[in-house]
């Protein structure tokens, strides 16, 4: 038996090293089934079928596994479920998650369904003290983030994103509400107080701190359609006829109002014309100015949001009244937001005993992108340790703290530029809020 486990451990390492070797993975799956690890075997069979949907051996084995599944085997699988998940190769960021999960996509042969005679409640009670909780709150109660409202904070892909989905950042949300959203939701009050909605809103701040995410949430709050114009789109436009394309975007927005046009990396689209050498790019800036003036002058229902890391590079004409004249500084995530970012990036990983508050406290000044990097580094540490010892384990608090020690905040260069701006280029008071933040952090 020990020999068999040793062989399985070796094969696991071999499969990790050669994930594309289907024959090796098939052999491992057979051994796992024999040794009583059906769930892990199914994971590997799924990976084989993903690569080769017509693999008859895998299909046969899978069918026989379902046909021969017993209550005892299911109970054993529950104990090994987390280990099986952890033992599977950790998916790289952005990779399809299917490698570590049950097979999906390829058509499965029809298998006869067994009547469900297994007592899941009893099994859960038996295992309640075996698996530690994923996340620990200060009150001691575990929180797996599976409450009615999902806890993730920066999932920009989720449809119907609203400001409530943005964790923390109360000041930013309050400012958005007062300057933009409340007047829009209350047109009678707006008319009474003479509050103008002309012009757009420019979100600026260090990179990786949620500007794009917040812009999408604002669009969700308005219940408007959302058209995102990114830097990649801009560069495409410059290579072709930039002015025509910019006009087309705004025309489309008018036809589909209410509509939010979101100009991401607007410093690329609207850079200072004095800094531009090429005429097509200058023409694009001119066209953008014209379109913004059109929005101001009579296109109800078209709202312009913009985001940039370098507001000081934007042509001053774009910042004049009636255009992108309102600004909102989006600073690095606060404590609550950082905890939510940690939770989001750890939600699909095998974690145990994570103290989010402590991690959030140790990462003041880190961007959301830095926190994602920390989670990735912690996963690497756990994976390497598992490979070295041959013992699969969860990602723990120590891994994350070690990763925090390794990953430095990336916002230093941005704040250096921001300091110079606040000191030497703030005559009009455009960056007073930035200057106030820098003074508070003793950077000024």
């Amino acid at each position: 038996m020990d020999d068999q486990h040793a062989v399985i451990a070796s094969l696991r390492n071999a499969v990790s090293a050669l994930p594309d070797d289907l024959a090796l993975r098939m052999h491992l799956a057979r051994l796992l089934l024999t040794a009583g690890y059906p769930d892990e075997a199914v994971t590997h069979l799924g990976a084989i079928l993903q690569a080769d949907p017509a693999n008859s051996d895998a299909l046969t084995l899978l069918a026989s596994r379902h046909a021969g599944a017993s209550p005892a085997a299911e109970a054993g699988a529950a104990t090994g479920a987390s280990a099986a998940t952890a033992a599977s190769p950790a998916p790289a960021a952005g990779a399809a998650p299917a490698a570590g999960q049950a097979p999906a996509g390829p058509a499965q042969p029809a298998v006869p369904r067994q009547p469900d005679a297994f007592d899941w409640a009893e099994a859960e009670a038996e295992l309640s003290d075996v698996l530690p909780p994923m996340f620990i709150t200060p009150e001691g109660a575990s929180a797996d983030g599976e409450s009615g409202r999902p806890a993730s904070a920066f999932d920009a892909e989720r449809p119907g994103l609203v400001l409530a989905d943005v964790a923390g950042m109360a000041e930013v949300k309050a400012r958005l509400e007062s300057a933009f959203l409340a007047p829009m939701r209350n047109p009678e009050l707006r008319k009474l107080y003479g509050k103008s909605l002309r012009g757009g809103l420019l979100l600026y701040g260090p990179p990786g701190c949620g500007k794009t995410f917040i812009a999408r949430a604002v669009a969700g709050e308005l219940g408007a359609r959302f058209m995102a114009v990114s830097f990649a789109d801009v560069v495409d436009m410059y290579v072709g006829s930039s002015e025509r394309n910019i006009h087309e975007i705004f025309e489309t927005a008018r036809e589909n109002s209410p509509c939010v046009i979101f100009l991401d990396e607007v410093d690329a689209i609207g850079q200072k014309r004095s800094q531009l050498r090429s005429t097509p790019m200058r023409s694009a800036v001119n066209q953008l100015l014209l379109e913004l003036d059109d929005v101001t002058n009579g296109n109800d229902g078209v709202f312009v949001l913009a985001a940039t890391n370098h507001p000081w590079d934007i042509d001053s004409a774009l910042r004049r009244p009636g255009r992108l004249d309102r600004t909102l500084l989006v600073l690095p995530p606060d404590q609550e937001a950082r905890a939510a970012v940690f939770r989001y990036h750890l939600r699909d990983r095998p974690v145990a005993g994570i103290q989010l508050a402590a991690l959030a406290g140790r990462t003041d000044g880190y961007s959301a992108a830095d926190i994602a990097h920390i989670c990735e580094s912690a996963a690497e540490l756990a994976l390497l340790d598992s490979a070295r010892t041959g013992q699969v384990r969860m990602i723990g608090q120590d891994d994350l703290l070690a990763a925090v020690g390794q990953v430095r905040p990336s916002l230093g260069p941005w704040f250096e530029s921001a300091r110079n701006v606040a000191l030497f280029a703030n005559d009009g008071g455009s960056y007073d809020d930035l200057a106030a933040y820098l003074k508070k952090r003793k950077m000024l």
Partner: protein
Amino acid sequence: MTSEQGVELNRASLMIELGRHGEAARLLSAVLAADPESSRGWCLLSRAHLGNGELAAAVSAGNRASALDPTSDWPHRLVSTALISLDRSGDAVAAALQARRLGPHFWRSHVCLAQAATADGRFELATEAAQAALALAPEQADVHVTAGKVALSCGDVTEARLRQEAALAIDPSHSGALNELGRVSLRSRDAAAAAQHFLRAASISPQNGVFGRNSELAVRRLALRAVGGILLALALLAAIAALTAAGHPAIAAGLGLTEAPLAVWIAVRIRAVPKPARRHLPRLLAGRWRLAWPLTPIAMTRAAAFDRGQKNPECPQDGNAAAVGSCR
């Protein structure tokens, strides 16, 4: 090269112009992996590496471009610029001479040579190249900026000032010219004018840390002159009080007569600080004060001497953009 690859090179060129050097480098690496025979592609990659501060990679890419198109001056200008920053000024001059040989009618080649020769201490060659660039392109502000730098390196402060003022006449928001004018003013011992020019350069291009540091240097020099006088006045007051208490009123009165002109001198010094610079005084003086508190008079004096003797205003390499050019 296919038309799609040509489009991608244009896209990379625009990215570089927008300062997206990292993204441009990634795009160009992909394009060149598909077609490594494009001299223009390698030149653009070299330019992107220069923008990223990856100097060795810039030299390597430039050399690749030169091997593919031996008749082009552009790769040699790129390589020369990178070599200056790598402190290989001799090699930089050699590359710049090659660029001039291949592009004798192109002003950028002469600007490149002027910069490399200045870095190598060959001021005659630098002056000759700067004059040639001026003859070819008197309407280019960058040419005047480079000529002014060369003149300042040769010690010709008058010519340096004229060149920078000419550059500003062409482009009033040329932050490089303003910075150079600040350096010229400091050389002429006019710290007030220097502070104004540096501050203006910093307000136009705040992301360039060099202008900010130069501004603080100049403002601090102005501040320390006034502070020196204030400390002297305080010391005199203390001496007057002590002498009076010790029973020497005549001597105390004599010292008291010096206070009035000293007060006028202090007021003049403070008024000499340009208005845009005055709001930086408390911050800069507080910084010095915290460092020097235990030994205030001695430390402040030493700090002033350090500022005068050690720290010179920096000159950003933004003039290199004139040598390497935009992306063609």
